[in-house]
């Protein structure tokens, strides 16, 4: 075993894990916020996420054909793409709630869940249909921005691209903004109040349906931002590439304690790091017996272990209530 190598790749793996983790965290917020207010798993959130990536790539391709992609400063391009992706996913999430979930609000629990799975398939194929008609292809590649591919070689085994920094910075910015909205504003407090007790919230004058729409808007926008960052980071997207990250982000939300916003962030990071370390270290540590393809098995085994000992998740709420 090459100990020097194991230590040498550590910073790079850590960086990859953090990037992946922030991506999961941003997606996980959509699951956890909706669960917080409705106790419902929005299984269409993985497609809401990937729609953000598609809106982003369309804006970039649009700018490219208008000759603006290299004409505009790259931060402007990024902000445009991010805002478009967030708006697209956020509005889509609000629409999905109105059309597919709200009419089922008082139905038995399983019914909206099935509706969500249906919406998930529907959106996958709608993206495919739309892109097939529009571009004659549904596997799309994010146009490269040269500035983003600039790499800094920090050490022999660690180099950081501008792209990675942008993804980390963007994700941190989103998480901070969300934290401020939820904890420091009146509507944010109202979201938490509705999450805790809808009837009591309505007795405060809070329009519960509007707060639910707002929750879908914010959760969807976070998913859309994640979609854009996903496209920027990994380049290739197709209508089905939301599914696996979505499932993992959902796991991250459960790991952190579903319904708990800081929990989703922590859960996302833990899962991203586990996955990155498993991918890089498994084959090195087992002499090649288990390759990187076993990363999910290792990551999820650890998750199962954590959940056995902390069934409510890492930050699962234990609020003592007194009569």
């Amino acid at each position, binding site marked *: 075993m090459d100990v020097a190598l194991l230590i040498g790749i550590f910073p790079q793996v850590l960086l990859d894990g953090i990037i992946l983790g922030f991506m999961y965290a941003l997606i996980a917020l959509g699951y956890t916020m909706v669960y917080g207010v409705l106790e419902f798993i929005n299984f269409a959130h993985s497609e809401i996420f990937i729609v953000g990536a598609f809106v982003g790539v369309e804006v970039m391709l649009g700018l490219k054909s208008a000759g603006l992609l290299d004409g505009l400063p790259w931060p402007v391009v990024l902000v445009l793409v991010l805002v478009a992706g967030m708006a697209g996913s956020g509005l889509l999430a609000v629409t999905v709630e109105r059309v597919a979930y709200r009419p089922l609000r008082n139905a038995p629990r399983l019914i909206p869940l099935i509706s969500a799975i249906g919406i998930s398939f529907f959106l996958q194929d709608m993206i495919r249909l739309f892109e097939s008609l529009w571009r004659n292809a549904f596997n799309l590649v994010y146009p490269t921005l040269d500035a983003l591919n600039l790499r800094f070689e920090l050490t022999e085994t660690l180099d950081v691209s501008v792209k990675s920094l942008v993804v980390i910075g963007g994700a941190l910015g989103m998480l901070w903004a969300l934290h401020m909205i939820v904890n420091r504003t009146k509507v944010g407090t*109202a979201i938490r*109040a509705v999450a805790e007790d809808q*009837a009591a919230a*309505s007795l405060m004058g*809070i329009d519960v349906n509007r707060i639910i729409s707002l929750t879908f808007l914010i959760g969807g926008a976070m998913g859309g931002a994640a979609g854009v960052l996903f496209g920027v980071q990994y380049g290739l997207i197709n209508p089905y590439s939301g599914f696996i990250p979505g499932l993992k982000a959902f796991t991250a939300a459960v790991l952190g304690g579903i319904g708990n916003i800081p929990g989703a962030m922590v859960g996302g990071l833990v899962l991203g790091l586990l996955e990155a370390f498993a991918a890089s270290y498994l084959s090195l540590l087992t002499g090649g017996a288990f390759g990187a393809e076993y990363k999910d098995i290792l990551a999820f085994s650890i998750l199962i272990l954590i959940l056995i000992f902390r069934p409510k998740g890492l930050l699962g709420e234990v609020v003592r*209530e*007194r*009569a």
Partner: protein
Amino acid sequence: MLKVESIDVAYGEIRALKSVGLEVGRGEIVTLLGNNGAGKTTTLKTISGLLHPTQGSITLEDESLVGVPPHAIVARGVAHVPEGRRIFNRLSVRENLMMGAYLRSDGKITADLDRVFALFPRLAERIAQVAGTLSGGEQQMLAIGRALMASPRLLLLDEPSMGLAPVLVEQIFDTITDINRQGMTILLVEQNAAMALSIAHRGYVLETGSIALAGTSTELSDNADVRRAYLGE
């Protein structure tokens, strides 16, 4: 101010209220007495829009409240302190109070906050604390304070004495009297009939979903049936 006329309310097949009518005049404390399951809470929930009557009318200052969603009824000036207090356990005391003022954007919110703290100094001491960690009495104070933050015209109180030690019950009832003296109109639902009649101007007695008796507090306190059924004589 509030006029409820012959409302029927049903939970599925079960009729919870049958032709209930009552009135609350400006500046009054009116109490609604009755046993468990008589329909007291149902009546309050129907007034605040959480339940819908199948028949009858509810008007506040001659404006109908039937079919108006709860959040819009708050906007009309009705604040409801629900049974079991229903404070937001995970929010701080300050956040709970600010949720009470959710619809307001006038400049008097801070003044009203001070007023609530004057009524309940304990809340001021615990302002940053998470509400779920308050004692039962403090939670009741918070629930009432939160409703006052809406600056309502009419305050609906559902069993403010529930689960509280007798000394705390007296404190809460003294405060309710104070709030009323400052001009608040109050509809009070209570199991503790003796306490309720001691502070109310008038009262109604609900029995299995219908009004059985109505009168001034003195009349009700002197009524032989009321004394036997609700005052433990």
